[in-house]
């Protein structure tokens, strides 16, 4: 799923005819201005859930917020602007926006307040040939979780469900 801005701006007596590709990570929910990779015309767009809600509308004289990732000229033998051409396209970082780069939440207690195990990093194993010890003794291997659990037990707020 990837929307495009097909630039039809007349430039030098000819239509620009450049297809600017808006890759989904950056534009899925996005409002702002994008430049055409060929002629530099700035377009305003507003995308909601990958759907072009408003635009593209020309914004002459304004600066773009973001460049397209890639652009090509399908009517001229597929001449293309690859990612990362300064002033035209955006470099391909191979990474989604920061909000999609969440840090894993290592849950130490289940919804009823009992200790869970199996988070990372794991303590080094003493097993051989891939063998992993079966019993993760909370008290020995995760003393801080055990302490917290003891407090929960003493508070009397632990539920069975």
């Amino acid at each position: 799923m990837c929307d495009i801005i097909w630039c039809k701006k007349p430039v030098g007596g000819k239509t620009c005819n450049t297809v600017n590709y808006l890759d989904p990570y950056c534009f899925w929910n996005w409002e702002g201005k994008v430049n055409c990779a060929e002629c530099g015309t700035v377009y305003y767009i507003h995308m909601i859930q990958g759907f072009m809600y408003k635009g593209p509308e020309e914004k002459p004289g304004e600066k773009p917020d973001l460049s397209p990732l890639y652009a090509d000229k399908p009517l001229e033998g597929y001449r293309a602007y690859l990612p990362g051409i300064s002033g035209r396209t955006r470099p391909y970082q191979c990474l989604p926006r920061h909000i999609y780069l969440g840090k894993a939440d290592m849950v130490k207690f289940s919804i009823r307040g009992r200790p869970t195990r199996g988070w990372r990093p794991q303590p080094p194993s003493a097993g051989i040939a891939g063998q992993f010890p079966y019993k993760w003794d909370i008290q020995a291997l995760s003393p801080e979780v055990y302490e917290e659990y003891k407090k929960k037990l003493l508070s009397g707020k632990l539920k069975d469900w």
Partner: protein
Amino acid sequence: MAGEIRPKSKEELEEMKAPYEEYCRKAFDPGNECSKPVSLNGIRWLSCTMYIFTPHSAGNLAELGAEVIKIEIPRMGDAMRHTSPFNEAYLYPLHDTRPMTGTGFGFMNANFNKYYLSMDYHIPEMRDVFYNLVRQSDGLTELYRPGTFDRWKMSYRTLQEINPRFIYVWGGGFGYGPKVFGGSYDILAQAHAGFASITGMHDFMGGHCTKSSNWVMDWGSGTLIAYGVLAALHWRRKTGLGTMIEFSQVQTSTRFTEYAVPLYGRFGIVRQRWGNWDTQLCVHGMILCGKSDFPDAENPQDKHDARYVMVSAFQDADFKELCSVIRSKELYEKYRVCKDRVEAMAQVDIYTALEKWAADKSRSAVAKVLTDAGILASPVMNDREVYESEHYRQRGTVRWLDDPLFGDVLLQAGYSAGMLSKTPRRVNWIWRPVGADNLTIYRDLLGYPTSKIEEWYAKAWI
């Protein structure tokens, strides 16, 4: 009905049902499964499987007490370990050498109680080790493209020479035939064999053919294989001989299409989708109410979706009662008999009237009004509500397990597959890391020296 004894009051009902209720509670005794024997005790099963479909077939046997040895790719494991809902829920570690890689919740439910062995069984150096396992086992499930195990000299025709009692299961996409090399995923099975085409709302309601969110074909196929295995075990008791089971997953989808194929055969009619309604009964569907039961909740499943109610009033007397509840005498006059109601446009008429009536009511209010009137109705519950349901708690079908490795885990699958009073199913552990049982199997079961096992490990053969 003549001769039927009916309770005259709530108290009498309690009294009548009490002895049976008590009998059941005592017979099934949820929570004490481990004090009873298991039915498949003594059966050892090998599982060269991945994803859900075939692992679930072996998982069924493990829940019933068979000793299932899951053989995985060294240091990688089942591909299913690397999937998790929205890539979020992982339990660590995957393997001794990979403490920062975990196993995702996608792996859940198909792999209870198994022993985890790692082995690169396709290399000639490990073939004898594999054969030694076959000599000591009752059967195997594999999922490779047809003929792959044959090429590796591990198919039924080789293994039955080693162990004539051996039961061999191949589970995969299409099976032998013109599409023999087609692999399969659940979604392909749903799409390819007719199931998805009859799921979802009709296109005049704005619907599309729909994939069931859950991998129903994987879970269904796995369970059907388990039945096949039990039948093969019964046959072996009588004859002393093994069997080969060849199971094409897309055929499960065909099996689940009810009357569709015979209907086409006789009348040339292609079955239509009918969404939350029913093609054979009316009223027998789910309706949307105007108000959510949890309007202030943050979770959209609660905030927006807690508005659906299932209603069943297809019998004429029930429909009459339903019409009187929604105060629509005309509706009853128009569709007095079931065969008139089932007709397509009549259903549109009836469900529209029901949803209009429910438009200013909450889900629980609708369910209560209908239930009080003696009509079968139930809110469409989400997982949280299932968790909170006292009925499931008392039956033990939703319960907590203190997993030896992963701690407090909430479970539903292992105990929701029918209860056995003498030999109940059980979940002892949800899973273990890749190769967790290498030592137990290679050294204690097969008798290889530790030095040999370490050598294989260093070469990444195990």
